[in-house]
Structures are given as C-alpha cells and as structure tokens.
C-alpha cells in the first residue's frame, strides 16, 4: 500500500518542520556566543566568529541568577513533593474509601478544573498578604537576637508568612486538582484482589497505600510530578506578583526583570535564556515518554 511508504517529499517537509522548530534555539545559542559588537551587527552573522563563552559568566553575574535558580529549583521540588503527598492521600480516599458526601466532594473538586487561574489571582494575593499577621507567632516565640540571626542567615524567608516568602511561592500550589483526579483514576485501575490480600495479611490502609498502591502507580506519579514541577518552573504571573525583592524572584521573574534592565545586550539575554532552558531540556530527554503522556493528558482534562 502506498500510504505507508515514506516518500522523499514527505521527508523533505518533515525536515523543514524540524528546521523551523530548531532554528530559534540555534539562533539563541549562536547569539549567546557572539561578542557584544557581533551580536548587534547588521546584516547578522549566521554563526559566531569567535566563541565568547564569557557571555555566560557575564550574564550569570549581571543578575543574581544563582539565587533565581535556587529559588526555582527549591520551589519546584518542594511543591512537587507536596503535590504528590496530598494528591496520593486524597486520591486514595476517593478511590478506596467510603465516606459521607463522597460524590459531592468529588464533583466539587472536579468542577474547579474549569475555573481559570486568573479568577483566583487577586483573592489569593490578598489572602497571602493577610497571612503576614501569622508572623506574630514567631515574634512571640523568638527573641530579638534569634530573629536577627535568622534574618542574617537568610533563613527568615524560609519560615515567614505573607508576601515575598517561600510560603507565598509554594504553599498555594501544594495541592493539585488535576493530580488528585489522575491518581484516583490510576488507583481505581489496581485490582481489588491486591487490596483484599493486604487486608487479610493485616496491613493497615496506610501501609497498603505505601507498600502496594504507590509502588504500582509509578507512571501516574511521575506524570503528576513532572507536570507540577514544570508548572512551578514555568510560571510567571504568580511569582511576579507575590515577590518584590530580588532575592525571592524565581528564574522566570528574574529573566523578565533582566530583560527590562539589559536593554540592547542581546548576547547576554540569549545566554540567560539558554541557561534557563537547559535544565528542562535535560529533564525532557530523560523522561520523554512521561512528558508526552502527561502533557497530552493534562490537555484532556477539560
């Protein structure tokens, strides 16, 4: 049958697609390795004549990118762990337990998937601003000396409430409706016999969850983890509005402010942008199939 034969023309078109897909990345890396004067040359050179690796160092030092990186990775990891923990527990309850109002709860959770995040933006901002008052708890327990020490060691931001804290960046994202839904579907697919066997052996529900359900649900867990990490890593709007000081910015907010400050330094901008793309690209090549599966599913949710 002719339909299944790969013609040269087909391949040509597919490779044209590859070229269009890859070229912007090539252009980013090429510009990032040009000297300042070569980057602003017109007509542009298609490849850097002398590789200016120093651009990366310069860009890295032009803004506190180390801090931005740390913030993004820290927030990503903590919220991913949090999402897995809260979602696995909730999904377990929804899939294997009987309780009053189960259907109502489930539809309440499911119904919120339609709500655009923008609706929550302003109320969440105001709620977080109000949590500032909770810092009084620390003030009650901590002496002035301890408080000053925490600020000196830059540890205060890790524990404080209110805007401009890790609490603000992470806490609202510690639960995910989509993950709960995804894991529930997966948990439901696990044969009932396994649960019965565990029960006969006298394992508690908690033990059954950690020793049977979770090891069997690796694909779904990895998918939720990836989506949650990617969501945190790529988000711009939320960290933009809840952070005001430089050292609390995530990588994406850092890039945004760097872009405004760097002006015409395109070689530095492209170096910074390369640095921010690299970690996700590495993650992608290792966990490709989970990426595709997860992202396709996350679209299906609506």
């Amino acid at each position, binding site marked *: 049958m002719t339909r299944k034969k790969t013609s040269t023309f087909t391949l040509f078109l597919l490779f044209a697609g590859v070229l269009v897909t890859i070229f*912007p990345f090539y252009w980013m890396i090429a510009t990032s390795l040009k000297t300042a004067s070569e980057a602003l040359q017109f007509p*542009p050179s298609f490849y850097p004549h002398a590789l200016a690796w120093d651009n990366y160092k310069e860009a890295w030092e032009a803004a506190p990118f180390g801090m931005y990186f740390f913030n993004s990775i820290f927030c990503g990891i903590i919220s991913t762990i949090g999402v897995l923990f809260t979602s696995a527990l*909730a999904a377990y*309850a929804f899939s294997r337990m009987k309780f009053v109002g189960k259907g109502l709860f489930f539809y309440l959770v499911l119904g*919120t998937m339609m709500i655009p995040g923008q609706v929550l933006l302003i109320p969440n901002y*105001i709620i977080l601003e109000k949590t500032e008052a909770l810092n009084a708890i620390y003030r009650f327990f901590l002496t002035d000396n301890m408080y000053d020490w925490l600020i000196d060691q830059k540890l205060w931001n890790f524990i404080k409430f209110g805007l401009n804290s890790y609490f603000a960046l992470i806490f609202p994202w510690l639960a995910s409706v989509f993950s709960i839904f995804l894991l529930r579907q997966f948990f439901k697919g696990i044969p009932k016999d396994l649960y019965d066997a565990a029960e006969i052996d006298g394992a508690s529900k908690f033990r059954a969850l950690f020793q049977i359900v979770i090891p069997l649900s690796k694909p779904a867990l990895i998918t939720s983890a990836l989506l949650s990490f990617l969501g945190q890593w790529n988000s711009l709007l939320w960290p933009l509005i809840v952070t005001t000081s430089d050292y609390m910015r995530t990588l994406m907010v850092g890039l*945004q402010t760097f872009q405004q400050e760097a002006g015409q330094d395109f070689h530095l901008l492209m170096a910074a942008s390369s640095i921010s793309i690299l970690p996700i690209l590495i993650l992608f090549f290792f966990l490709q199939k989970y990426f595709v599966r997860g992202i396709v599913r996350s679209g299906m949710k609506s």
Partner: protein
Amino acid sequence: MKNQGKDLQLVKQRKRRRIKENLEAFAYLSPAMTILFIFLFIPVVYALGLSMHRGNPIDGFRFIGLTNYISILGSDIDFYKAVVNTLYYCLFSIPTQIVIGIGLAMLLNRAIKGIGFFRTVYFIPHITSLVAVAMIWKWIFNEEFGLVNYLITAMDIEKVRWFNDPEGIIQKMMQYFPIEMIKSYYMSLTHCVDSSAHPMWKRIFGYALRGPSLAMFTIVSLSVWKVIGYTVIIFLAGLQNINDSYYEAAEIDGANKWHQFRNITWPLLSPTTFFILIISFIAAFKVFVPMMMMTNGQPENTTVSVVYYLYQQAWTADRMGKASAIAYILFSIILIITIIQNKIIGKKVHYDS
C-alpha cells in the same frame, strides 16, 4: 432478650466502624482539602465578592454592587479593545495551528521510519518556558538588528517596525484600496474609535475593522510555533485510530488523495479537531506571558489581551475590584465555551461507530 442485646451490640459496632471509616477518610483528604479550601474554594467566592467592590487592599474596599460589571460591559472601550485583540489572536493562531498540525500529523502518519525522532523534536518548544522563548522571539523580530528584518531587507523591502507600528493590517491594506468611496467610508468608521461622541458598538466595530497590529502577528507566530508539537501528537493519535480499511476501500473505488482526505480523514478526525479547537480557544483567552515579555501591550494597546488588561487594572491601576469583575467575565466566557462543548459532544461530532 439475649439475642436482642446481641443485635443492639452489632448495630452499635457497625455504627462505630462507620464513624471510624469516615474519620479515616477525612484524615486522608484533609491535607489536600485544607489547601484547596484556602486557595481555591474560598478565593472563587471571595473574587465574586471583590468584583462588587471598588478599591485595593491599601486604600480599602467599598461595596458598589454591580457597578463594575455595568461599567466594564457598558462603557469600557479598553476592555472591548482587549476582547477584540484576544479574538484576533484566536482567529489567527487557532486555524493556523490546526492546519499545520493536521498536515504534519498526516505526514508523520505516513513516515514509518523516524516517527519518534520527529515527534520528539516537534515537542521540544512545548516544554520550554514561554518566558525564555518569548525573549528569543523579541530578538528575532528586533527592528534594527533582528533576523527577520534582515531577511526582509535582503528582499529589498524596507525594515518592518514589528513592535512599534500601531496600525492594523486591514488599515494598512485599505490604503491601497482602489475605490475611493469605500475607502473613505472605511476611514470614517475606523476613526470613530477614539471619540466618545460615538456609540459604543460603533467604536468597538471601528476598532475591530482596523485589524490586528503587526506586533500581534509576532505573538501569534510564537504561539503557533510553541504549541504545534502538542497539536501534532493529538492529531497523530486521532489519525492512528482511523481504520486502514476505509482507505483501502476508497482506493478500490478510485478515490483520489483529496477525496480520501475530504471524505474519510477530515470527518473521522472531527472529534480531535473539535477537542483542539476548544482547548486552544480556552488557552488563547488566557494568553498573558507573550504580552508581558514581548510587547507590554504596546503599540497603542493593540496587543493588550483580556488577562493582560486584568493584570494592568489590578497591579498598575490598583483597581482590584474591577480586575476581579474582569476575571469573572473571563470565567463566564470560558464557562460558555465549555457548555457549548458539552452540548456538541453530546450530539457526537464523529460518525465512526
């Protein structure tokens, strides 16, 4: 007597067990539910309340009933401009995405070798962050030194002011329109946008008649490039569900490639197309990052999307009540799309059994 006592004990035991079961379930639910309550359920209601207030957290809020909704929907030309901009963004990005997506998916469906390689490569833009990619786009479309303008000048055309030309493309094309009467009528329509003497509908219509600015096209091209890998994968899954025997039968009947596409592929792919259409529409209505990174809504607010307008109102103009009302209007639009989707899916789009 003895038996009755036993029964009672049994009932009590069962009741106790049920209470225990319930408590256990709620313990499992509580971590997720606590967070969802504070940052999802309460805010949804809170936002509705805020949308009926004027002000911000610093100056305080004042209850004004439905005034925000009335003033936005009744007299806020900037809001309607944002809606028109967003609709133009949808109009140009979604069909392009679907056409290229189906095209590439069909090519890939034919290629037996290297399908994984192509799929992976096409998917890369989708996972990279929009922030970083928007920076590349801004550089490629840079007016003075950008690659696109170099290619344009190489073709002996003047450099295009991608981000600084507020004129709409229809406006641009109408300059060369041969019939003077229609041209001047068109000009009068597009000019009434900025004077409040004209009725709202006329101003909105006039604004829509200008067409999107070139800056919007840079954003559209970015969005299409970024999402295409995702679209291809969804369409590919749709294509692989179509049974080969349909094509075999068609070939025996002497149908050519176009007929096969028109009568087999397209109708059988319609659920997929419809799915892509809906999710793209919802996503497009929430577009924000490219505006923030590339244009800041400029030139002359021709790239202000609904969400960017919301952001400006809340954090630049400090009108959080009004911004909440915009958020709820956005929510209603998305709700309407979802309801339409459910209605149509109920009727079934596809014809395959």
